[in-house]
């Protein structure tokens, strides 16, 4: 309620400021022979910015300090011996009761006399501070308004000032991207460092047993070997690429080189639908349809395939990546100059010979880059693996058995309600750091290759 009033007041003040700057500027322009440097909107915005900043500063200061001030005021209203006799929980309950009385809602049960007086004085305290803060903000705003208004002359460069403010705001927005990266790296590194104070790095990076003791205490943390997870991740990624690369690449070749315009117009968006489907949907599909199907198919030919296995997760992940591979390959095939293709046709090569012997070798670096991007996508994929890979962090090479990956273990170890006190949850950050470094290297390398490829034909 109060914040709504303040926001309303602020808007009114801003409107006034803009209007006053605007009208003053218009007033200048009507005089004969005077050329005003900036248009009235800029003078209006100039005054408005000048008004907004001090008012916001005061409000921000109150938002920062106000809570503590109110708290100590309430405590000062409670008799000293009562404060002494109460523990922290009781004190908080008393404060809540007093606030409830002050709000006029009242409390259940008997109201003690000191509570009533404290509530009454808190109400007046709240009113007074609210009026004071709102008044101070308004006064500061108005003073700044008048000052800014007084600076408006025909030669005043309001536009340049406003544009400078806009420029700074834009720069701040692009800094968000940098801050995100800094935040990611800082949080991963600091928390992973804390993890390594519990578990030595060599035990993490070269350990072959993953068996965190989630109820463990010092000396009994369990084993945190990365290798089983890494092998699981790589196995699923390899299976996914075995599905996605042939299908995606051939689909891209067919659509760009052979398909009739109508087929292309229909098939391309439909394949791209796959890219927009949330991964949890693929996970569910893998869990309830693909997994049981593979198990039954395995039984038919005498293979023992688990319903949740590296194979299930890998195949479905491959399906998910198909549009990624095909649209990237499509782009890259289209960038190979026509002259290369026409030269091959002129020598009498068939279409497929041209594609295999001319187009693909020429596009190879770009396609490799695209595949690396797809690999990085597969390595970081989470929900399909959480649902369909079986979560069995054991070092083994059989794709028909359940596995666990880095991402699955992050989800299992970090559920959001931990206080990051032991390696059980901190390991999530060490795993996240590993994942981040792997995908970052893949991405940088892939983008480098793709860029080199583009430059080659530009």
């Amino acid at each position, binding site marked *: 309620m109060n914040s709504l009033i303040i926001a309303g007041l602020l808007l009114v003040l801003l409107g006034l400021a803009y209007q006053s700057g605007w009208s003053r500027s218009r007033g200048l322009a009507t005089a004969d022979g005077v050329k005003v440097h900036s248009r009235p909107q800029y003078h209006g915005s100039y005054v408005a910015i000048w008004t907004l900043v001090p008012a916001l500063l005061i409000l921000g200061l109150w938002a920062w300090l106000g809570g503590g001030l109110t708290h100590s005021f309430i405590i000062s209203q409670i008799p000293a011996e009562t404060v002494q006799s109460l523990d922290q929980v009781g004190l908080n309950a008393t404060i809540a009761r007093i606030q409830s009385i002050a709000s006029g809602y009242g409390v259940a049960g008997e109201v003690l006399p000191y509570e009533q007086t404290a509530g009454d004085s808190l109400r007046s305290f709240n009113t007074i501070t609210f009026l004071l803060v709102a008044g101070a903000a308004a006064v500061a705003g108005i003073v700044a308004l008048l000052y800014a208004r007084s600076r408006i002359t025909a030669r005043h460069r309001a536009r340049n000032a406003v544009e400078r403010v806009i420029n700074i705001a834009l720069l701040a927005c692009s800094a968000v991207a940098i801050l995100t990266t800094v935040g990611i790296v800082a949080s991963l590194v600091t928390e992973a460092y804390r993890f390594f104070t519990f578990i030595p790095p060599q035990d993490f990076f070269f350990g072959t047993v993953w068996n965190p003791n989630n109820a463990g205490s010092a000396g009994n943390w369990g084993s945190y070997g990365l290798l089983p997870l890494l092998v699981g991740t790589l196995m699923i990624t390899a299976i996914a690429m075995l599905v996605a690369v042939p299908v995606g690449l051939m689909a891209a070749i*067919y659509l760009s080189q052979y398909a009739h315009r109508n087929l292309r117009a229909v098939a391309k968006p439909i*394949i791209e639908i796959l890219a927009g489907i949330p991964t949890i949907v693929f996970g569910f599909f893998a869990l309830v349809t693909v997994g049981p199907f593979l198990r039954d198919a395995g039984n038919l030919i005498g293979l023992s395939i688990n319903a949740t296995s590296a194979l299930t997760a890998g195949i479905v992940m491959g399906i998910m990546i198909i549009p990624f591979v095909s649209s990237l390959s499509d782009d890259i095939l289209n960038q190979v100059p026509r002259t290369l293709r026409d030269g091959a046709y002129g020598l009498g090569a068939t279409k497929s010979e041209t594609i295999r012997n001319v187009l693909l070798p020429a596009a190879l670096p770009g396609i490799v880059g695209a595949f690396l991007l797809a690999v990085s996508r597969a390595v970081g994929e989470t929900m399909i693996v959480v649902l369909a890979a079986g979560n069995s962090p054991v070092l083994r090479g059989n794709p028909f058995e359940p596995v666990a990956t880095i991402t699955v273990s992050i989800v299992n170890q970090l559920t959001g309600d931990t206080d990051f006190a032991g390696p059980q949850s901190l390991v999530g950050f060490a795993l996240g750091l590993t994942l981040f470094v792997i995908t970052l290297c893949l991405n940088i390398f892939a983008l480098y290759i793709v860029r080199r490829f583009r430059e080659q034909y530009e």
Partner: protein
Amino acid sequence: MATDTLSTGHQASVERTRVIRASLQKRHLSEAIFKGLGLTAIILALGFVALLFTDIVRKGVPAFTQSNLHLSVTFDPAIIGTDPAPVRADGQSDADFQAANLKWQRDLAMLNWNKVIEASLRAAAPAGFEIDTKDILSIAETDARHEVREMFVADPTLLGKTVEVDVLASANAVNWIRGNIDRSLPDTQQQLTAPARALIDALVADGHISNGFSWSIFTNVDSRAAPASAGLLGAFVGTLWMMLIVIALAVPIGVAAAVYLEEFAPKSRLTDLIEVNINNLAAVPSIVFGLLGAAAFINYLHLPISAPIVGGLVLTLMTLPTIIIATRGALLGVSPALRQAALGMGASKTQMVFHHVLPVTFPSILTATILGVAHALGETAPLLLIGMKAFVAAVPATPFDQATALPVQIYLWQGNENRNFFEPRTAAAIMVLLVVMIMLNGVAIYLRSRLEKRA
């Protein structure tokens, strides 16, 4: 001599033609094979899409109907012996009246409303049907008693009257009616006892149980005790909050960042760094953003766990690179003539960008925003890391309340132990999610084609 060469030359050319003819056949065959492989790939990819959709729809459609039990409920004073509802006295404070009212409701809640349900179920059963209390109550969903109690709280004059009420059949009853569970399994593997199953069949036969469209899936929140009444409303509102946060933050920040980088930034080390950084950020796995949220927003800034505000912030950071890259692409595509014309008329650079260049890119920015939001909508992994794994049975009133989201609800439902019942329900939730996404994408395509035509 001359004729000899001629004839050998002729022979050689005939020979060459023969060889070429023979190899041509082979080459055409391999051409056909290659083309066939390409076609197979297309058919496979399209087949996967078709399979995925038909599978989800086939599994999910039954969950949009619910089985209703039609009962005549009697509010028997012998069971509901209670004081009248409190009336507000003069001078009573809000809090005191609330307390009295709550006490009355608590007294009502202490009554055994199951007896009311049991009586009405027995009334509906065929005459002389032998079944004990536990078994007969397993037919109706456990929240039936709350439903009846709330009717009474809302209207205490019902005491002693009989009204027609529809309550939900229990999840296990639904499994039995729909054949989700194998009917030929022996008693020990059935979730319902033999008399309960027989009574269900009898009730279906005489029309006391019938199917209706399940509005409750849209209007109820998640429920653990009463799975048949579990709905998506809480998750839907949670997702809505997060998407509002994403739109409110990611679009202005993303567009501003793109404008700065594309139009104003001096070519320097720093801007190069920002550029590389944004490209990499776009490819960082989403789960890493979840780790950032857990460490920075929850552990460091102490924002509430599993609240839409944290989810919204994490998804905003994840969507930003998409919007920045798309906007930059659109800005790059604006014709230089437009810029030069604006500058030539004496516009400043800022005026040129904001008055002339940016409006032209509006369709692209809008499309990128919708696609980015659609992507954020389906994201699950980062939300799990910020605590959105918890069971929440409430509609979040503010972004600071505990909430779930649609994809998280799907994750939670697929993990429910009553698989037979929740598999269709999960598929139904997926259908809802996909419909929302397809609508968003459709709007993006429609707007793009419309706005581009106008521009």
